[in-house]
């Protein structure tokens, strides 16, 4: 029988073995002192809990032993008779009712089976009636899995689950995303085979040889890059796009902004750029020509009543398009604030899923990078995307005379299935007219 160092004080955790008072082979009576033990509270003699013969000294003099540690082995008289261990509570037979693990739920929640780890920590038989176990073949995806699948545009039926009952876990999904598969839904590619020959050249797997030459370097794709690529492929292959450009005289806008921007900054703590004015003009134009705020639905066109403008922002990981919902209900100032908020978060990488969902039309400020004409790709599955190009002072003809004016091009790419030239030009015209009518009296707030 193993002799353990007993607990001798509330906060005492270890003891130092002193002199052994018996030797191996000695016959011991119950309660005979075996050894001296010193703790920081007390020095004591440890009495033997049983009668018998000292078989082995395990902890030697001077050794530090934690409470509960084994210090000796005694061949007790009981052992010679019948080899039973201390912990054989043969008398204590719990009734079969109590035997069930009430665990830590106890009286308060008596009728609830200890669900998983909230029980006493014992193994729970998964066949026990836990709510949800009886759901049969219905497949449940956890919030985390659903969210990730949306962001990366993954069809969850393609993912193998290794969780309980074959559940797709977040880890399973993450592994799937990290693997070399792209997130393009192959079905939609097949569907449009008949439409354009472009789809023939679309491949779902990389066809570049795996072996790199000496002057080549492979960059593995980040999840964001994969997603951007998939969206671009969809846009390029599924939407027949046309393009139209108009010039806009924004001299009035420039003058207004220069006048109010410092006060605005001081008062609102946010910069006033040209973009809020553009967003306002775009919102109003979308109300005038609603067809630009829609989506192709194979056998119908879905008109969106909410005007949710996506703004293309260059974020550290790649292009991202946060959305200003109900942009038409905001003033210039309101739009400026919302823009600042979203672009800051985009650059910090803290956008949430809800920030990038639900866009109905997209605006891209390509002018910020110096471009004066660009051909954007429609943000699938929207109907149109507009760019604002760089504002450049040019000599133009006004009232039959040469004048120096601030000129900005705006370029519209659109889904030609939904929108004809008439609507596209009408839209551009509307945006142009609104921007050109901005002057020092235009309301900011």
């Amino acid at each position: 029988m193993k002799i353990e160092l007993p607990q001798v004080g509330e906060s005492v955790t270890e003891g130092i073995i002193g002199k052994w008072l018996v030797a191996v082979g000695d016959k011991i009576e119950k309660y005979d002192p075996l050894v001296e033990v010193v703790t920081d509270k007390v020095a004591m003699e440890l009495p033997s809990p049983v009668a018998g013969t000292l078989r082995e000294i395990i902890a030697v003099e001077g050794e530090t032993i934690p409470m509960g540690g084994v210090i000796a082995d005694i061949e007790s008289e009981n052992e010679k008779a019948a080899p039973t261990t201390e912990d054989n509570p043969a008398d204590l037979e719990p009734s079969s009712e109590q035997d069930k693990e009430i665990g830590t739920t106890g009286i308060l929640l008596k009728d609830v089976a200890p669900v998983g780890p909230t029980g006493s920590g014992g193994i729970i038989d998964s066949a026990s009636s836990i709510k949800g176990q009886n759901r049969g073949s219905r497949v449940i995806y956890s919030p985390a899995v659903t969210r990730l699948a949306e962001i990366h545009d993954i069809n969850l039926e393609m993912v193998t689950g290794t969780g309980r009952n074959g559940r797709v876990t977040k880890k399973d999904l993450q592994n799937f995303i990290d693997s070399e598969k792209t997130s393009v839904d192959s079905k939609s590619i097949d569907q449009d085979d008949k439409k354009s020959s472009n789809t023939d050249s679309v491949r779902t797997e990389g066809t570049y040889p795996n072996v790199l030459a000496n002057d080549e370097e492979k960059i593995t794709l980040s999840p964001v890059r994969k997603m951007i690529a998939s969206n671009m492929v969809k846009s390029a292959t599924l939407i027949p796009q046309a393009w139209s450009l108009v010039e806009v005289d924004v001299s009035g806008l420039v003058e207004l902004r220069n006048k109010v921007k410092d006060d605005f900054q001081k008062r609102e703590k946010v910069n006033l750029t040209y973009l809020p004015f553009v967003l306002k003009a775009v919102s109003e134009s979308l109300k005038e020509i609603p067809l630009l705020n829609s989506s192709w639905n194979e056998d119908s066109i879905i008109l969106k009543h909410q005007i949710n403008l996506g703004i293309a922002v260059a974020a550290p990981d790649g292009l991202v398009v946060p959305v200003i919902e109900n942009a038409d209900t905001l003033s210039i100032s309101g739009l400026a604030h919302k823009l600042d908020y979203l672009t800051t978060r985009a650059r910090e990488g803290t956008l949430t899923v809800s920030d990038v969902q639900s866009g109905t039309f997209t605006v891209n400020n390509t002018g910020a990078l110096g471009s004066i004409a660009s051909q954007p790709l429609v943000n699938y599955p929207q109907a149109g995307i507009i760019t604002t190009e760089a504002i450049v002072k040019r000599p133009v003809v006004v009232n039959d005379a040469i004048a120096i004016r601030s000129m900005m091009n705006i370029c519209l790419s659109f889904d030609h299935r939904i929108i004809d030239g008439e609507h596209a030009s009408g839209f551009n015209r509307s945006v142009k007219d609104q921007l050109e009518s901005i002057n020092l009296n235009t309301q900011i707030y």
Partner: protein
Amino acid sequence: MTIKTVLEAVHDAMQEEMRRDKTVFVMGEDIGARGGVFLATEGFLQEFGEDRVIDTPLAESSIAGVALGAAMHGMRPIAEIEFGDFIWPTINQIVGEAAKVRYGTQGKLNAPMVLRAPHGGGVRGALYHSQSVEAFFAHTPGLKVITPSTPYDAKGLLKSAIRDDDPVIFLEHKRTYRLVKGEVPDAEYTLPIGKADLKREGSDVTIITYGLMLHHCLEAAETVEMDDIDVEVLDLRTVRPLDIDAILETTKKTGKVLIVHEDNKALGVGAEVSAIISENAFEYLDGPVSRLAGPEIPAMPFAPPLEEMYMIDSEKIANSVRQLAEY
């Protein structure tokens, strides 16, 4: 850096603050001549004298009330309740009065007091030397409640508590007093109240815990490594105010959270943490937010096998982690 026990850290924190600030004083049962039943105030009477080291009668309500009064008059008392189990007579003074001083006087008065007590079980302390008391105080606006688990945390947080201008309840788990040793800087430092500490980084499952349980959780994390489960362990350190940012950040990282505390489960700190998670990080959950906590039993048993059943150890924690990991 020196290796200290939690007890030594607590002792040093109080001693340094008393040297630094004359308005700091200690009061409690047996803390003067005896140096405290755990020797937390050993040497204080000799160094600081009777005026600043006060042996009180056995009257917890008065200990708290007198400390409150002194605090409202410009002192910084550190009142000790000898065992958390005896803290209940102070509820009226602490919850009913101290917590409400600043608010009730519109900021004209405040109560910069610390009420500290050793609490927690697993020491064969039975009914009157084993209770966990944090939940009752953590429920009260106007109080701060700290539950450190390491010497480094205990010293830094106790100093902050003493310097805080409002009532702080400082609960030391008595089993950590000598069992837990750790490195403590020799130079002066404090730690911010209300900030949790990531004691172990991982990616599969998060354990949120505090007090003695932290150490069992770390052990369990090592154990389940062999099952290829990578556990992240967040030590709350303060249970009021909770570090919500840290709680949500780790939830978003792993999606699976197990909350472990020794205190009884129903309506404990874990219940609040769980609610916070499901309210704010629902879309990031990959498994049910789970709690492993004390049972619905009125007191810690005295009989060793029963106490063992009551207490949570690293094996129970490891089992719970495995279950959550495989969900």
